[in-house]
């Protein structure tokens, strides 16, 4: 076991311990409204007003394309970027 692996194991264990303790300190999975410090204000606002504001019966689509439509533009841009990058990497170098 080299020195590098020794140091790696030690700090990896530190990170692991903290992440798992953080997972235990989160609010319980599947919380109930109002209990254990959980209040879904933003999402309840979306669920109650999505149909009047956007007319979409699918709330997730109304979030994707209306409430957070700018993220969707960025996401489409990411795909566009990846295509451009792959075509650039596999291009022909000679004219």
């Amino acid at each position: 076991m080299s020195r590098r692996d020794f140091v790696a194991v030690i700090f990896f264990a530190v990170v692991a311990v903290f992440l798992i303790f953080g997972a235990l300190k989160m609010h319980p999975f599947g919380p109930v409204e109002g209990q254990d410090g959980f209040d879904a204000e933003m999402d309840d606002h979306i669920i109650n007003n999505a149909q009047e504001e956007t007319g979409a019966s699918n709330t997730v689509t109304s979030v994707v394309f209306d409430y957070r439509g700018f993220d969707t533009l960025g996401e489409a841009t990411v795909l566009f970027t990846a295509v451009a990058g792959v075509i650039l990497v596999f291009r022909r170098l000679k004219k």
Partner: protein
Amino acid sequence: MIYNIPFIAVAALILIGLYTVIFKRNLIKIVIGITLIESGVNLFLITLGFRKDSVAPIFTSNPDVSQTMSLPVPQALTLTSIVIGVAVLALMLSFIVYIYRHYKTLDVRKVVGGDDE
């Protein structure tokens, strides 16, 4: 405590991914580790969206709209994150193709990219 099993699974996925990136030698395995971290984060996002005995937030021919619905925003974020992960994966794999073309190996200790050879 016992309710947080999904969060512990998320932490475990992320740690397995980090382990793969740090201790494995093959470039393909490093990419697999990155996708493991990404799937862990996606699982965390979609886990946060669940509420106790809730249904999907869709009103089309929904029998009872008064029952609690799961949160819609984390599902949208997960969709975005998945598409971004696909893009990153495609680019990394095409880089690996070129690296193998140049170095004739996939060992991370040999792909160091020193000064001009």
